[in-house]
């Protein structure tokens, strides 16, 4: 509706200008002169003023929209970073049967976590150790505990404050692969990394 009236007004303005018919350029806006004997002239000026106001309002609106867009864009970018960092942080590491030693290939995975923890000083995480179903049920709680602790010790030895990391063991109680073969067991012998707090906005390391 607003746009329609703007269109109408500008149409009037153009018509008014055209009515002058190639005469002198429209007077620059200024103090309205005493030339008030022409009703058409008064109407023209009024239309012009309204058109200017409408244009200005439109411009302000556009600026505001761009500003909002910029904020939204930056927020989205930030969210993408947070998700990417979260995914990195959540990467699991795996273990050999009945072992709690960090494998060579998993050291780089832990190095990433060290970097993330360094870049985000408010971040606290919990490491949970898990086992496959082959060992003794209760012994696996102790084994899972050593697996969680091994990852924590690695991270702490690379400069992260130990109070930012909790450990827990679930033994063989929470498998992620349900099979009864080496493929499933290998997936289940793992450490999981979970954000406890400070994970709302994460910076890329």
């Amino acid at each position, binding site marked *: 509706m607003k746009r329609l009236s703007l269109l109408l007004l500008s149409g009037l303005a153009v018509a008014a200008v055209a009515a002058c018919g190639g005469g002198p350029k429209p007077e620059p806006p200024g103090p309205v002169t005493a030339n008030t004997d022409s009703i058409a002239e008064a109407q023209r000026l009024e239309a012009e003023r309204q058109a200017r106001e409408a244009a200005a309002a439109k411009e302000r609106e556009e600026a505001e929209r761009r500003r909002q867009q910029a904020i939204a864009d930056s927020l989205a970018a930030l969210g993408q970073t947070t998700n990417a960092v979260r995914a990195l942080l959540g990467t699991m590491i795996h273990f050999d049967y009945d072992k709690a030693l960090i494998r060579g290939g998993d050291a780089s995975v832990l190095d990433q976590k060290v970097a993330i923890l360094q870049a985000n000083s408010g971040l606290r995480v919990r490491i949970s150790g898990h086992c496959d179903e082959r060992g003794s049920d*209760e*012994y696996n709680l*102790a084994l899972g*505990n050593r697996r969680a602790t091994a990852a924590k010790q690695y991270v702490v030895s690379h400069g992260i404050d130990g109070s930012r990391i909790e450990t*827990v063991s679930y033994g063989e109680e929470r498998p992620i692969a349900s099979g009864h073969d080496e493929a499933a067991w290998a997936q289940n012998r793992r450490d999981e990394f979970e954000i406890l707090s400070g994970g709302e906005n994460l910076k890329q390391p």
Partner: protein
Amino acid sequence: MTAVWRSGGLAVGVSAVVLTAGPPVRLTAQDTSAIDRGVRIGIIYRPGVRPGMVVLPVHAPALDSVRAIVSRDLDYTDRFELITLPGGDSIRVTAAAPGARPPSAGGAGRGTAGGGAAAAGTLNYPLYQALGADFAVAVTPAPGDTTIVTVHDVAVGSVRRELRAHLPALKDAGFRLAVHQLADRVLEAALGAGGTAATRVLFVMEGKVYAIDQDGADQKLVSSSDHQAMSPAWARDGRRFAYMEFWEGHGKLFVQEVASGKRAPVATTGQALDFTPAFSPDGKTLAFSRATEEGTDLYTVNIKDGCCLQRLTVGRFYDNLSPTYSPDGQRIAFVSTRAGLPQIYAMAADGTDQQLFAPFDYGATGSSNAPEWSPDGQTVAFHRDVGGTLQVFVLDVRTRAVRQLTSVGRNEDPTWAPDSRHMAFVSDRSGYRQLWIIDVETGRIRPLLQKSGARLPAWSPRLPETASSTP
């Protein structure tokens, strides 16, 4: 089946083990049965080792289930040959002279003399002798809601004992336990041995704790929370049990009353991973494992006063877990990884005098776990990795000799019955993991629960009467 049980066994002809009797020495046998899916085959006993037992048919319909439960309990003692009467249960072979007073009907003179006399009517003893019976058991009703169980000594030709019981109604929650207790009294009367009929087994299935009668009936859920549970353990009085639950980031211990179902968290510092609780025999102390960043170690806490956490082991670079008390409360057997793989160790109950308990060959013997001290104190059962699968072993406490008990499939988490000769354990011998019971002395095996996923069994002591209400 017209033949008596023992000739039936011969007819099947699967001769696996013939035992020799050595009177004071505990008889032992390996579990050599094939996958038997509930059918008793595999072992033939030397005639005479196990006395023959006839449980006479009853003519009172109300007592049918009593007879059935008592009969099965007596069979499950693995101390008798249960003899099926020729012609099945329809014939009761009685003496020609009914009403004659038995020579030694103990307690029969106390009230209801008429019913007692009828119940204890003498039998045609020579006939039962010919059938191979040493004992005959009759279940008869008597006035005043009394049930009389008469134990006849067939060889002597007289009544050995007359047992009276007021049984709860069939639908009463305490009915089965009361009947089981009657069965234990029959065993006591016949052989002077303590039974295991009035016991239940706790176990874990899908993260919940359940209880089931030792004869496989009456399974009940006993844990009430949504938290994943593990490691149930009985107190010696049979009135309480403990177990562990996973809570957000740690493991909590609870003690629950059997009768009321009420539970209370154990007063520990509470924020670590506490697991494998074990009651001291006097019921005042709970020993348990605690996993921290320093490793897993053994602690005790005074559960009577809810205080006095005490650390028993300092493992730093190795783990100590799964405590089990000796029945005198003086020693604790446990698992330690101090030599690399987990093995069975023992120490004084205050943590001193730690030493290797179950010998092993370094580098050759597999991991050993889940020890449980037998109620008679003579043995410790545990499981050990043999060629990549687990088998149940028994350690002789005095000689330190270790004997493998199982060999079929994967067998783990043994728990002793109060008679120290039966044991429940988890086995996948039938294709999936379920609970089984083995008689260590004869090697006879039966399934306790044919459901997949049941594990971590804990066999109760003989249960007190008040525990009969629904847990």
